[in-house]
């Protein structure tokens, strides 16, 4: 242990503590070394340590029994009172019920109003406001405060507050605010010990009242940091800028220059001030400097770099005081990169934590009848099924997900069960029911589903008390193994604890709530409670302004100090306005703002190494510095010629990043052109595969050699490709039934086709109303289709076959395969292949214009040795065949020859370049593999 430091080299803060210590010792000089009779009210417990040290320094005793050092809240808690305090949860239900009964707010969220009202009522209690007995008097009071004529809106406001205030205080229950009041009163009543109070800002009314009462019985000495700072020459500029009287900036500056030439913030207080040295010199060490960043990222990086500089300079305690939580979060992550852990004193609301996500997702899943996204999200939470290994759980959820994607099942627990049992009757989109791999162990999935079902049972009710709902939730979580999962997590434990506390508090409450009301309540609770992480021990800590009162750190970083965060705007209450609050005796915004200003002053007075950061521009918009700091900067610049800007950091942080550069950097991207080994060259090719090969060899390579596919998505609405499939299906069925249309009356044909169409569309229409629109679209094409078909028959074409799969060996090593929509023949034996396309004829024509760019028809023609080949363009009221403009047999021949030649070249080691044209790339799923946009500019 080092010997205790001499106060001569102590920091600014030590001066303050020393005067407190001297006072205590003087007051108790006869009791030294036993100071236990004294009581010191602290703003927070971090202050105990430096105060104790100051006492030790001043007393110079081997040991000193310390005064009671306690915060006012804790001190009050030591007083026990009767009757028991009604918890806020119960008060909220009572109030909720009162509101519900009165039907004042039709559509509104009553929980929101309840919590607003409760906090108003508490404030009234805390500030000893009693409303007049008579509502009319209250209204008159409001009228005066608002300085306005009364009207319906004001009357209503008065009535709500007045009536509920009396309703809530009528039942004689003791709420926390009242209890605190009584306790403070008792404390003051029984006061015997001399009291020392450490303050940083004005006392709130209840506290002031307490001290007054206390002082009647025992001495009270208040140490107000603002006054103490005013006595310190090095705080002169702070004092003037933040709390100064109304005198003008220039006068203030002159005053500073004359009376406090050494109070500039741009040199350590120990060095003598030399004004001229400021100019031009690169490095000045400052008590305070300001860094305006041009983005969130830059602000965070600057903060991170500065913290590490301080650490390297040997600072032992560094506070990150976050006005903006978003930046703080980013800074914390950046520091963690660099190995610097951060102790987080400020909490995070439960609703932003993953431990609450699992809870809410469970309720979401229940509500949405296990909508697949909610379900999978739930099952991917690390907190569920905690009795299994993570590996097992994940295996099961991935299996389920694969099934869900493959079969496109969107929701319903039963449907998932069917999937898992492999008995799905659902029309699978294209693929076999279950891959063998999955079928081997469906039990894990089934087990998971069974637990979900069992857990869902527990919550299957429409109304219950909050306690009842919470118990049911607890049971369901237990079934799901979530309780176990949460218990293994720090935040989870605190969440469980909170749930348990609420359950206990509400055990006797018998107000009933619907499922929706309960959920809403729960969400509000999770929003209102915070989690604090105590698991990290570090010299760097994250905290908020109000928590820094009377604290000294080796260095302080104030994050996010723009005008909108300092002073911060809490959104205020919906009740009354500041004028009314002021007359009622409630604190106004002005009080809140003044408190923040005082806290800032205290922080700057207590600490001599402070960096302030803010985003000087945000999303390309200007963003102003906090007005306090702006004032300070202006005054400082005027008085001492330095605007306190931190200039090095911006340059430095470009170069001072920690990197994981343990691996050589990649080469500049270039067009890929892989040479594929024999083993990967496919032995079968379809027409669409060939098309892909022509459009872009690399795309072909990715699809058919790497065999990569996009994930199946669960599609909920009908899409164009479904429409295409169904029309194919309809036409196939129709022609199987009516190979020759000419033999039937037209009306009968139309009717039959309509009928088949409705049948094919039926399941889709059942699922989705909008499928009707597609059905209608097709139905509108039916007459045109029949016309076209009859015209074909008139030309002698007869339907021969449809949906025909084929295999055509081209060489030993290559087979062409596929499925032809339809084959027609003529009596002379001529053959025609047709392919249905739900596409405009002009687009089809342009596809066919350049020979060899669309190979489908020529290939089919080759397979069937057809004389003609056409796309049949089916549009709303137009059905036309589109034929290739070239000579078909010649074209077919050339296509096959080219295919063989290209395959031969591939086998011979030719590369497959990624050179699709823009049109091909536009919808290419392989753009992430070929990376065209990375190299196409080069």
């Amino acid at each position, binding site marked *: 242990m080092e*010997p205790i430091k001499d106060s001569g080299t102590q920091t600014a803060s030590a001066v303050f503590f020393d005067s407190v210590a001297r006072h205590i010792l003087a007051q108790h000089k006869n009791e030294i070394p036993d100071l236990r009779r004294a009581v010191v009210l602290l703003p927070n417990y971090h202050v105990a340590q430096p105060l104790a040290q100051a006492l030790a320094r001043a007393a110079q005793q081997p040991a000193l029994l310390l005064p009671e050092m306690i915060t006012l809240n804790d001190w009050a808690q030591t007083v026990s009172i009767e009757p028991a305090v009604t918890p806020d949860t119960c008060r909220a239900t009572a109030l909720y019920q009162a509101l519900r009964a009165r039907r004042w707010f039709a559509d509104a969220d009553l929980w929101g109003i309840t919590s607003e009202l409760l906090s108003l009522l508490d404030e009234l209690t805390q500030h000893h406001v009693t409303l007049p007995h008579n509502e009319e008097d209250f209204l008159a009071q409001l009228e005066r405060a608002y300085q306005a004529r009364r009207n319906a809106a004001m009357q209503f406001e008065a009535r709500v507050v007045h009536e509920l205030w009396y309703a809530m205080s009528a039942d004689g229950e003791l709420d926390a605010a009242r209890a605190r009041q009584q306790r403070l009163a008792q404390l003051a009543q029984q006061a015997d010990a001399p009291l020392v109070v450490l303050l940083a800002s004005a006392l709130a009314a209840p506290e002031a009242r307490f001290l007054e009462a206390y002082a009647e019985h025992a001495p009270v000495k208040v140490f107000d940091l603002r006054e103490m700072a005013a006595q310190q020459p090095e705080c002169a500029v702070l004092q003037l800028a933040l709390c100064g009287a109304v005198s003008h900036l220039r006068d203030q500056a002159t005053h500073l220059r004359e009376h406090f030439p050494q109070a500039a913030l741009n040199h350590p207080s120990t060095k003598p001030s030399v004004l001229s040295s400021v100019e031009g010199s690169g490095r000045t060490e400052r008590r305070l400097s300001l860094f305006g960043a041009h983005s969130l990222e830059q602000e965070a990086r600057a903060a991170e770099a500065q913290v590490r500089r301080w650490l390297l300079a040997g600072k032992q305690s560094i506070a990150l005081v976050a006005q903006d939580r978003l930046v703080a979060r980013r800074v914390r992550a950046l520091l963690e990169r660099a190995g610097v852990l951060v102790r987080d004193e400020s909490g995070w609301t439960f609703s932003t934590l993953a431990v609450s996500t699992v809870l809410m997702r469970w309720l979401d899943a229940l509500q949405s009848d296990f909508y697949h996204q909610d379900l999978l999200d739930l099952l991917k939470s690390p907190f569920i099924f905690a009795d299994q290994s993570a590996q097992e759980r994940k295996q099961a959820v991935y299996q389920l997900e694969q099934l869900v994607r493959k079969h496109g099942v969107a929701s319903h627990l039963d449907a998932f069960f069917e999937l898992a049992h492999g008995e799905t009757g659902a029309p699978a989109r294209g693929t076999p029911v279950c891959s063998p791999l999955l079928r081997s162990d469906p039990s894990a999935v089934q087990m998971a589903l069974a637990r979900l079902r069992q857990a869902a049972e527990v919550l299957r009710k429409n109304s219950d008390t909050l306690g009842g709902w919470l118990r049911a939730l607890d049971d369901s979580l237990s079934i799901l193994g979530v309780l176990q999962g949460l218990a293994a997590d720090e935040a989870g434990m605190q969440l469980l604890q909170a749930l348990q506390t609420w359950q206990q508090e509400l055990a006797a409450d018998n107000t009933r709530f619907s499922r929706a009301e309960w959920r809403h309540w729960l969400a509000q609770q999770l929003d209102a409670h915070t989690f604090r992480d105590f698991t990290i021990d570090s010299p760097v800590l994250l905290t908020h302004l109000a928590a820094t009162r009377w604290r000294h750190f080796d260095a302080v970083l104030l994050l996010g100090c723009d005008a909108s965060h300092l002073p911060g705007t809490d959104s205020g209450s919906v009740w009354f306005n500041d004028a009314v609050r002021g007359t009622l005796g409630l604190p106004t915004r002005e009080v809140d703002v003044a408190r923040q200003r005082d806290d800032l002053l205290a922080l700057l007075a207590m600490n001599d190494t402070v960096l302030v950061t803010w985003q000087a521009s945000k999303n390309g918009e200007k963003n102003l510095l906090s007005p306090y700091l702006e004032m300070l900067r202006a005054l400082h610049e005027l008085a001492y010629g330095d605007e306190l800007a931190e200039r090095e950091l911006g340059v430095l942080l470009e170069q001072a990043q920690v990197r994981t*550069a343990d691996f050589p950097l990649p080469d500049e991207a270039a067009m890929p052109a892989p040479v594929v080994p024999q083993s990967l060259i496919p032995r079968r090719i379809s027409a669409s595969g060939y098309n892909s090969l022509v459009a872009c060899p690399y795309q072909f390579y990715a699809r058919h050699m790497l065999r990569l596919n996009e994930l199946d998505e669960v599609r909920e609405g009908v899409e164009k490709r479904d429409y295409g499939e169904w029309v194919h299906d309809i036409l196939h069925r129709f022609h199987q039934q009516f190979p020759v249309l000419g033999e039937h009356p037209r009306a009968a044909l139309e009717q039959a086709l309509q009928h088949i169409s409705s049948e094919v569309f039926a399941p889709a229409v059942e699922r989705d109303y909008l499928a009707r629109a597609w059905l209608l679209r097709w139905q509108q094409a039916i007459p045109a289709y029949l016309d076209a078909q009859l015209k074909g028959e008139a030309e002698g074409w007869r339907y021969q076959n449809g949906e025909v799969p084929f295999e055509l060996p081209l060489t030993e090593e290559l087979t062409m395969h596929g499925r032809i929509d339809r084959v027609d023949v003529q009596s002379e034996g001529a053959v025609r292949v047709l392919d249905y396309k739900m596409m405009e004829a002009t687009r089809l024509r342009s596809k066919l214009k350049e020979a060899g760019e669309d190979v489908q028809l020529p290939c089919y023609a080759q397979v069937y040795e057809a004389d003609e080949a056409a796309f049949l363009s089916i549009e709303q009221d137009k059905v036309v065949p589109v034929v290739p403009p070239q000579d078909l047999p010649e074209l077919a021949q050339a296509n096959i020859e080219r295919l063989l030649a290209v395959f031969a070249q591939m086998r011979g080691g030719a590369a497959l370049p990624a050179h699709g044209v823009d049109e091909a790339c536009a919808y290419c799923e392989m753009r992430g593999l070929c990376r065209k946009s990375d190299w196409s500019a080069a």
Partner: protein
Amino acid sequence: MSMNNKVALDPQKSVVVEACAGSGKTWLLVSRIVRLLLAGVKPGEILAITFTRKAAQEMQARLHEWLHFLAVQDDEEVKKFLRERALDEIDDAVLARARGLYRDFLLAQPAITINTFHGWFMQIIQCAPLNSGVPVGMQLLERTAALREEAWQAFADSLRAAPEGETAQAMQWLFTEYGLYSTRALLENFVHKRAEWWAYTNHLPSPASGRGAGGEGAVAWAVEQLRGELQVDLDADPVADACADASLQAAVQAFAQTLASGTETQCGHAGKLQAAWELADARQRFAALSAALYTQADEPRSFKPTKKQNAETFLFARDALFGKLQAVRDALAERAALRMNQAALHCGAALLEHYQELKLRSQQMDFTDLEWQVCRLLNQSDCAEYMQYKLDSRYKHVLLDEFQDTNPLQWQILQAWFSAAAAVDARPTVFVVGDPKQSIYRFRRADARLFGVVREFLQLEFGAHYLTQNETRRNAPAVLEAVNGVFAPLPDGFVDFEEHIAHHQGLPGHVEVLPLAVAAKADTEETRDEPLSLRNPLVEPRAEVQSGAREMEAEQFAAHIANIVAHWSVQDEGGVVRRAAYRDIMVLVRKRIHLRVYEHALRARHIPFLTSRRGGLLDTLEAGDIQALLTFLITPFADLELAQALRSPLFACSDEDLMQLAADAEGSWWSRLQRIAQSNTASPDLLRAHRLLQSWLGLADKLPVHDLLDRIYFEGDLLHRYAAALPAELHETVRANLQAFMEIALNVDAGRYPSLPRFLAELRELRAAENEAPDEGRVGEVGNALRIYTVHEAKGLEAPIVWLLDANDTQHKPDSYGVLLDWPPNAPRPAHFSLFSDKRGRGVRRAPCFDADEAYARREEMNLLYVAMTRAKQALLVSGNGEPAEASWYGRIAQVAGQGGNPLLAAAHSVVPAQEKLSVEVDAALLHPLPVGQHAARMTGEQRRGIWLHALLQHLVPPNALADKAILQQRFGIPSAEMESLWRQAHHLLALPALQRYFDPQHYRSACNEMPYVNARGELKRIDRLVEFDDEVWVLDYKTGETANPAPYRTQMLEYRTAMQAVYAGKTVRCALLFADGTLCEAG
């Protein structure tokens, strides 16, 4: 012709200023605020409304800057400043006040309100009276696409549930007529215009639900209204009537006969007409007549008299017939329009209800709701009055910027505000600035006509002064010459235009119209005889179809940019002439559609540029890579996503690596990668990928998304690897995009109930939502790049050099499937509201309305040109492609552009001084991790129980024992399962006879728990229990361990003893450890 600032800035006067582009509207507004403050107005009494948040921020910043100036400058400077703002009598008192403004203003409570309409509305809504029907506790919903999609699905579900219901029938009809796509567009457009719809139907008694106007009754009313306007007689049958009409028959006969005397074709038509009339069925007859007289595209066929025919009789017969037929067709069109409105309004209202319901359920409100709610609120006179005093600020001065962009609803709100203010005798002064020539936000429902109406209103009601300002401080005379040239002849919709004058007469300027790019005629004729030879895709890429005129324009553009940067000079604010840089050039386009072509050309020349491509972020390849990686991390069987991640610069795996993975045909790619990694055959890249992916897979469900991403960025050395893989001109953009992606994650994490799957689902939604997807990242201030904007985005911006691209384009698609609206600017509600489909079904009754709309659209097109041209400070360049079109922007500018030399083509006096870079020594230690801090070892159950037991002991020890079990349990957060045994144990200890001495007050003189002391070294220590007897003092230290071994605690005990010995000098100090089982063990 500088404006009279004396009037404009007079705090007492209400003023309307019509000020041209670049005339310093912000200067004027902020000056006025300064004058108000000087006149003693409190900041809280000022309300300034701007069009964008950005403008509000800028105004705020400017104000601070000026007030700071006043506070610190010499008297002379201050006086000069004030004189410039038309303040003449400046005595010491004024000076003193001016100096004090800064501080007063900065710290004022309530502060000044400088906000957008929406921001201000939100303020109002948040303190709306509770009984006003405004929902309490609403959040503002900025992105609506996802919710609109959800509403559409909910609507579809409701139809499925009642397929025979009225709504479903109506939908079915709409589907048949217009198809799914257009029907949805129509209904969505209706929902988009819901504020107007509500305003239109607001006067009707609202349905019981209390949710305001717009329900079923409203639809019936609106349809009936429309029927009246369209003059549809539902009982009549126009076709039957016409077919039974002898005069029509006569007209048919007459024209048929006339035709019969003509050419062969004409005879044919005559025959068709005759035959048509002979059809018995009225409908068939009419259809046949129509077919004979109108083309398939529904255009009247052209019939011209031959030389032989009597032209007069021919034309007379023709026109008579067409006239009659057209009348019937028009009547039919009106009927069809009515039928359509009937169905679509019905369905639209139903869809709207779903949308509103969804928002209400999730406690959200979008901008339109906000506007409507505020409007409703302020139109209830009680509430409006209440709002006057409910806000903490009481506005005595209202300043409105960019007034031409105000919409009728906003104006109504203002009016209501003013009249409520008048009712409480607090009518403010009003200061309005705007420029109807810059009104380009019709699509956001702005109405430039309001400007004139409001001017008159304010003149009449507020005695406002009307001033105009046509002197600009921005543009060089050369640019203005072009502006004046284009607009002085009063093009489309312009009724007056006053010549603009340059403030900086000496500023060199240049207007350059580049030759139109025209595509070379491609030879379309293919030589048929050549033998068919097909392209070999392995060796020959397909030729891009394009290389048309646009590509030529793009090439010309990029080449010229390079030239400008090499040879041109621009003049800075201070008059310094310096070499032009990329950042000096702003490129404007009307639409983004063809941007890719131009960007391509820029890239090919390595010209750095920035496109504020709205919503583009998630479609960039780099954002795609990260999404693929994250998707893989939660769905490890996503092979393609894994492959993309592997190929991205993050891992930069080669195709050989991929082929190695593909060769192993078993299982997912991830399982293959695992196998290969273990088999010693993997490349270093693959090994690295495996190592990192393995570790990230483990973190994916543990870390919040942002933290996970940060790990990925860091451990993957992401930014550096992307920089290495990509060409230099992409570095800034890619880096900015990667950071923007990180920021999305940061924001999402701060939201409620985050998870990685939800994050990815949200990204998918964002991507699907047109216009609302996240923007690409902004490059920091450092970048020197050309900026590309649409004209809309460029509003409020300026640049030394402005290039108007693709300016020869005259195509503009007429709106279809939308809402036709006539809302006279000053009327409380629209005079007309109906839906329309495509051009064909419009009829004639609504024609004036359509025409007015179109005229307005044309005028806005000219406004857009005005805005575009006036962005240029010194140089305006215009290029285009295609055939010359006089009415195009290109054509208009080309007609007036002079042939003068280019004064910018001059050597710069000075080169841009390279930004002085501070050289900073970087401590090498900053480049390496610096392990600091540690995770506290998780407390064992044992330790935790120990702590609880201590706590209980302390509170159960007499005297003053706090015996309420429940309270203690809650205070210390002891789980129920543990409480019982701990409780028993604590009582057991307290009751142990051997310990009575230390716990029972009868036995000792005094005792205290948790007693802190400080030793000579300043160390704060705490003693669990100190018991003082007459002759001795005991220090008790509670221990939880099972074993009663005091050895490890010896030093600690020694310290206690020494310290206490100093305090209790006369007594023996003894120390003991008290174990959980009750063993008391005295130390040494």
